């Protein structure tokens, strides 16, 4: 540990090479990234293909009580489900493709911002109305994604 006059470090420090042209290693990196992405996309595609016939259910609960549980395939045409309670009202859009909260009387509208729910595991929660809307899979292993509905047993 000796003191220097403050500037000497800059010139002696090892700097990374100034390689500003696309080089062989870069091509390898790009190739590896594209290959990995292709594998993941392929895997997801196969996964979706295997599970495409799995039933998707929409489950709407209020205060832990199930108000509605239906197979999405049963909605031959879109419908709107209305919830009226002393806390307020909500309108939930239901179709065979997607589910979303169209309107809510609550102040923060966080549930509306959740957007479209399409895949098992998606969900929207409205705390002021105590309403949970979620998509669950027909497969019983995944059917209870986060344990949120444990209280619904009876």
């Amino acid at each position, binding site marked *: 540990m000796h003191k220097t006059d403050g500037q000497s470090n*800059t010139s002696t420090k090892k700097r990374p*090479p*100034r390689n*500003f042209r696309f080089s062989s290693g*870069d091509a390898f*990196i790009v190739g590896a*990234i594209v290959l990995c*992405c292709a594998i993941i996309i392929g895997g*997801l595609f196969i996964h979706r293909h295997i599970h495409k016939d799995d039933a998707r259910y929409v489950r709407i609960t209020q205060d832990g009580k199930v108000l509605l549980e239906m197979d999405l395939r049963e909605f031959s045409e879109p419908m709107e489900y209305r919830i009226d309670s002393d806390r307020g009202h909500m309108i939930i859009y239901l179709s065979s493709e997607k589910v979303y909260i169209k309107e809510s009387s609550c102040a923060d509208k966080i549930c509306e911002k959740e957007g479209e729910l399409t895949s098992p*595991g998606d969900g929207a929660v409205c705390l002021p109305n105590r309403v949970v809307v979620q998509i669950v899979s027909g497969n019983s292993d995944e059917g209870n994604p986060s344990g949120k509905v444990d209280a619904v047993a009876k």
Partner: protein
Amino acid sequence: MRKSAFDIAKTAIMLSLALVLSILEAWLLPRGILPIPGFKLGLANIAILVTLYGVGKKEAFLVAVLRSLVILGLGGNIVGFLFSLLGGIFAWGTMCLLVERKHVSIFGVSIAGAASHGIGQILAALWVMRTVYVISYLPYLVLAGSLAGALIAFLTIPIVKALDHIGNEMIQ
């Protein structure tokens, strides 16, 4: 450990550049327009790359972490902070591994950094959202990020050259 005033100045300027670019990006690319949630150009990575090439690894880490912290302090939310922090640390680690390789240019460093940034963000999303479905975003986030990474490298080159030039003049 002693540092030259020039290095300290460069790091400080790059931190402020990173902040300005982060804010600029938040202005330019409002959410909802982009097809992939969470996708960004990563303009702030220009500043981190310049620090990595022009000053050093530790300083680049400082710029990456402090940028996330200051953005949080300026009114960001904690989830956004977690995303950018994890993404930034992943990108920094990967770029450090590659920056001294002879056959890897600044393009490879930036592209690999951008790809790692996407992986870091997906890990943060896994943790925050607690659902594996976010993985389906990963390939798109990484591919789009790699394209952005090449653009970022292109924009970084003149800055590194200019800083080298200033440094050489100071030594003479």
